[in-house]
């Protein structure tokens, strides 16, 4: 992505919009529900942890690999990545500013003591179960029905029993995976990647690193060396996964980096919808999160991947918060395959993330729907890459950036049409909404086209939450905070509709909470 040097760059700083603080009822409820003022997931779980020695060297890599009892080939893969990483420079092309990261100041492995021994949910310590319950993610299957108010009702009309299988990752390890047996009956493999390495080594070996190679970029290479845990999904030929799958990532331990690795494979004609959620406690120092997600869709397969990212964004003055450097890529390897990314990004101090699609198979389809909200001092540089290789490949990008406070929000996207991509098509729409007078929104679209017959459409708008709109809504009797929430929800509506119903409600509430006080 270093190529995005600013072709067709639009920059907008917002003019003055004067609004006063106040609190909307829905917001209050949402926050109260989780017993905190603003960042409701900011609590710390007190549990005995086991760490790798602080810092990063070959021994750290060997320690992690040994902890997981990994086979030789995987250790070699990690060490190779580590050695390569030492030769790489941290990228600086993104529109984000942060102090230099001291990679020796982090722990690269942190796990609840005895975590390796959890055989069943009954052995998972109560503190951890409580943590997830508090976040609305019950891990006992009987209780599983995501604790989202109102979601049950609406979803119930859509499907009979909305159930979501969860893989819960606590710092560096997966502590529980629900509905495994039931999924297994359908032939779906859903487990932590550490387990998959042992139980399905051929599958892991066949696909790991084939979409995001260990050499891909600085952060992906780091991840390849020290990846801790994440989710492995394999949906066999012709199977439609019977329930939503999800992973809930929780960073708890202090000064810890989380390096999750997720690998999802949809075999021919398979379908799976997967969602990840992320939270972390409020801590003063910055925590590092560098994940790699790889998706592979074979002929006629479809993967829908949704993210609700709510990492701790840091306080008002920009102290603390998560550095989120993520490489997510989907490979539409088969003909007529489809990969769809939907993301709601409200957290993190720094977001550096470009979920992408390689449209290799003929007639394959890639989609990217994004809502990125920045408030306070948050900085987000996010977007997508659509690489058209196959014939008649189609991609669609809809990005909604909302900036408030003193934050900066950048959309950066690449649409690349290669020589053989006969009749390729892309539609891109980037809308930015500015709230307040001290935030920034930037759009950096980049297009490479080697085909005369490609159809490319690009639309970009930047709007300010206008005084006219606010007054109009308030004149009808709607209070200020609720008015902002209503206007913002209107702005992001077409993307929210792409989320699975259970999560759309949650995402909507998250938006309200994220923007609370943004109009002060």
């Amino acid at each position, binding site marked *: 992505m270093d190529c995005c040097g600013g072709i067709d760059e639009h920059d907008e700083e917002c003019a003055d919009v004067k609004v006063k603080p106040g609190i909307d009822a829905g917001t209050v409820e949402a926050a109260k529900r989780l017993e905190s003022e603003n960042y409701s997931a900011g609590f710390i779980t007190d549990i005995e942890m086991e760490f790798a020695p602080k810092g990063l060297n070959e021994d750290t890599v060997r320690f992690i690999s040994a902890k997981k009892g990994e086979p030789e080939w995987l250790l070699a893969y990690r060490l190779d990545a580590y050695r390569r990483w030492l030769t790489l420079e941290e990228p600086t092309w993104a529109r984000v500013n942060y102090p230099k990261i001291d990679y020796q100041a982090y722990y690269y492995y942190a796990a609840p003591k005895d975590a390796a021994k959890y055989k069943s949910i009954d052995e998972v310590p109560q503190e951890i179960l409580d943590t997830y319950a508090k976040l609305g993610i019950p891990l006992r299957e009987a209780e599983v029905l995501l604790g989202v108010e109102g979601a049950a009702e609406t979803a119930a009309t859509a499907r009979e029993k909305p159930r979501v299988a969860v893989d819960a990752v606590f710092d560096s390890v997966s502590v529980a995976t629900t509905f495994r047996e039931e999924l297994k009956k359908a032939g779906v493999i859903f487990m932590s990647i550490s387990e998959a390495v042992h139980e399905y080594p051929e599958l892991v070996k066949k696909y790991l690193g084939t979409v995001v190679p260990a050499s891909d970029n600085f952060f992906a290479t780091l991840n390849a060396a020290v990846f801790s845990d994440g989710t492995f999904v394999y949906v066999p030929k012709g199977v439609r996964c019977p329930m939503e799958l999800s992973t809930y990532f929780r960073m708890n331990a202090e000064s810890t980096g989380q390096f999750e690795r997720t690998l999802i494979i949809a075999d021919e004609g398979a379908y799976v919808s997967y969602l990840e959620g992320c939270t972390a406690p409020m801590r003063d120092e910055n925590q590092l999160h560098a994940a790699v997600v790889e998706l592979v869709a074979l002929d006629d397969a479809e993967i829908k991947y949704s993210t609700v990212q709510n990492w701790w964004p840091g306080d008002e003055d920009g102290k603390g918060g998560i550095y989120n450097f993520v490489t997510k890529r989907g490979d539409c390897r088969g003909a007529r395959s489809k990969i769809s990314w939907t993301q709601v990004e409200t957290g993190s101090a720094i977001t550096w993330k470009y979920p992408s699609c390689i449209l290799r198979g003929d007639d394959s389809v890639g989609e990217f729907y994004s809502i990125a909200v920045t408030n306070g001092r948050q900085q987000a540089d996010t977007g997508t890459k659509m690489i058209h290789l196959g014939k008649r490949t189609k991609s669609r990008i809809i990005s909604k950036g909302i900036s408030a406070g003193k934050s900066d929000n950048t959309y950066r996207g690449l649409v690349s049409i290669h020589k053989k991509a006969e009749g390729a098509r892309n539609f891109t729409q980037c809308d930015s909404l500015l709230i307040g007078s001290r935030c920034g929104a930037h759009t950096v679209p980049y297009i490479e086209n080697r085909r005369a017959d490609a159809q490319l459409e690009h639309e970009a708008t930047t709007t300010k939450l206008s*005084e006219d709109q606010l007054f*109009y809504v308030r*004149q009808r009797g709607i209070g200020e905070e609720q008015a902002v929430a209503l206007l913002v929800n*209107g702005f992001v*509506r077409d993307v929210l509709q792409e989320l699975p119903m259970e999560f759309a409600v949650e995402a909507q509430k998250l938006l309200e909470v994220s923007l609370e006080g943004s109009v002060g």
Partner: protein
Amino acid sequence: MLKIENLTATVGEGEDAKTILNGLSLAVPAGEVHAIMGPNGAGKSTLSYVLTGREGYAVTGGTATLDGADLLSMEPEARAAKGMFLSFQYPVEIPGVPVMTFVRTAMNAQRKARGEAEISAPDFIKKSREIAKVLSLDPEMLKRPVNVGFSGGEKKRLEIYQMMMLEPRFMVLDETDSGLDIDALRTVAEGVNALRAPSRGMLVITHYQRLLDYIKPDKVHVLAKGRIIKTGGPELAHRLEAEGYDGVLAEAV
């Protein structure tokens, strides 16, 4: 009901501040409809914004009360809950928010502020259907985002739809006739007239006599230079239509 006494207001800040309302006094008793007419720049729209609490206008003197309550000290949403409604001269587009969602949110917010129960979905839909019929609004239009892609006439009719849904105690109609053809004007007037009631008051701001053929005012006021310079019956509107404002303005000096 609505009582305005010696109201002065400025727009702009510091040295740029400009006095727009300059000692305006006006009283609209419950059950009456008053018209305000006046030349461009007289302060007609400013009056409607000051009464409903738009930012950017500073009240520098005088009072405005609705049923004895001090309007000027309230937030715009509190004034709405108290029963103030403004039919905008230029209705605003709200992308992504369907009309029905918007109006129901507004209605429930007002009810909540007044300590009343929320309206049920079936009751709301029933009421909406009835009112859409009166105003000849396509029900499909009510599922679309507020004012987005609506014609000028549709926007005005949607203002009246909102007014009929929310059943305010006091209505300010700011140039509701502009942009309406004669058929639309008649439809809109029917809606407005349906809301006339002994407990309600209305202030109709207009440039032309035409609207007053359909919404018959009890009194007509002429607003010029920031205050009411003349008050009369409906015949005053006809005189203004025939002679223009010059005569009345000359008399006032």
